[in-house]
């Protein structure tokens, strides 16, 4: 995986798919909502209460949702309406296609997911904690976007499958069983962020969190490319 994998044209097309039409407003709605909510609570109550919105709502819900939306925007519609066969009929390296699309999804996740969390944190006046959350969100956002691109390449029900991973596995079961943290991208990010501020939890080991995040990212992007290599178009089910 290097810069040579990057295909400018495909990245440009993915960016257009992301910014074009209504889905852009949906993508923009999440950060607007988050920053607006935090600013409102800061103004009405205080910064401490407002900051609690971020680890409870912003990080575990808004960040993965933005990542899902970005990942499914760059690959989903093409798989959905079958026009991906035109892209795949071109002599372009499939790993390059997956890598380029993932880069665009990653950029969108960082700009509309991680950055608003940081900005909202600054609004509440907690600079160190906000930086920690930014680091956590950047790590988790990288792995999330790669994983969701991979899921998009596998199934038409990518959005629901990704949502079930985030909401049921990481959310519902993660709150019940602490062991889930070892297989939870969100927790890995928080562990890396813990190095900046003790405010964030440290459930798993730091080396494990870093290696696991890296491994998921690389394997997921490779897997997405591999799926595209042996892509078969199926009808609506």
């Amino acid at each position, binding site marked *: 995986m290097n810069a040579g994998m990057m295909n400018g044209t495909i990245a440009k097309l993915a960016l257009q798919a992301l910014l074009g039409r*209504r*889905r852009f407003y*949906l993508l923009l*709605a*999440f950060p607007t*909502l988050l920053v607006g*909510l935090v600013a409102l*609570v800061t103004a*009405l*109550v*205080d910064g*401490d*209460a*407002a900051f*609690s*919105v971020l680890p*409870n*709502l912003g990080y575990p*819900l*808004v960040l993965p*949702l933005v990542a*899902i*939306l970005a990942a*499914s*925007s760059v690959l*989903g*519609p093409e798989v*959905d309406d079958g026009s991906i066969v035109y892209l795949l009929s071109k002599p372009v390296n499939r790993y390059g296609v997956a890598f380029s699309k993932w880069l665009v999804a990653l950029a969108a996740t960082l700009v509309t997911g991680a950055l608003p969390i940081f900005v909202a944190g600054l609004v509440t006046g907690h600079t160190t904690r906000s930086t920690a959350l930014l680091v956590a969100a950047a790590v988790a956002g990288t792995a999330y976007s790669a994983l969701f691109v991979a899921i998009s390449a596998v199934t*038409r*029900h*990518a*959005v*629901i499958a990704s*949502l*079930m991973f985030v*909401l*049921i596995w990481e*959310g*519902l079961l993660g709150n019940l069983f602490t062991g889930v943290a070892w297989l939870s991208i969100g927790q890995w990010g928080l562990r890396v962020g813990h190095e900046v501020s003790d405010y964030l939890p440290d459930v798993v080991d730091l080396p494990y969190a870093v290696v696991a995040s890296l491994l998921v990212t690389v394997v997921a992007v490779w897997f997405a490319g591999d799926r595209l290599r042996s892509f078969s178009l199926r009808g*609506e*089910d």
Partner: protein
Amino acid sequence: MPDHSPSGAGRPGIIHDLGYRRFDGVREGSGAIARTLFATGLRHAYGLGRSGKSKVMPFLLLAMSLLPAAIVVGVVVLTGLDELPVSYADYTNQTQLLVSLFAAAQAPVLFSRDLRHRSIVLYLARPLGATALALVRWLSLTVAVFVFTAVPTAVLFAGAMLAGLDKSDQATSMLKAVTLQVLLAMLVAGLSGLISSVSLRRGFAVVGSVMALIVLTGVVTVMQNIAYFEGDSEAVSTGVGLVSPWSLYTGLANAWDAGIETPVPVDGAWVPAYVIVAALIAAGCLLGLVARFRKVGSL
């Protein structure tokens, strides 16, 4: 070769009797069309009559929402508790993530596909109009969501009866929960249906519904707790609850003593306010759906 020459003055048009068998059964009206459409929609919401893969998601979610109920029943029966550890209404509230995901995942099946592929035009070529079509679709999804919440309730109730808990207490509590679930199903189906009929790509419809059902509820819960515990404002805490279907459900369940705790008890003038807002949201979604089907259905 049939004669294709135009039927002029001396040639009156004839409908040839080619000897095909005539239909002499009962000709049913639009009522039968609506009933069939409703039943088909309800089956499709659970993937019945569709491919094997489309059955996976609804039944996986249903199984996940049934599992805790089975565990609760087992615990009650084995340890001989004299009441359920969770009320019927609260069970639905605790599994709200699954209910919301079910509605978000299955609403596009009923509302996006016809509009995206414009097969709605074929439906509208039949006597049923766009308004009736929208209402029947909505009813299918409402019943599907209601069944999704009612099945675990039935399992819990059956377990409670088998364990010999007080019959009248359990029946009252169960009936309250079922009534609230009907209201909840109307709201959830209305919102997710409207979103799916506007956003025709499945992925974006799902994310939109998740935003309206799950993210909004998360925001409301956070606001309610902050307003009460940090801001000391009971009115704001209760008032914010008017915004999301799930907080309306929990608020009304709290007001009706159905076994759900909210940060601030819902009472006094808040109760009619909750009822009116819930009715307005349901009606608004229905009007929106009808308008949307009319617009897309017109050629």
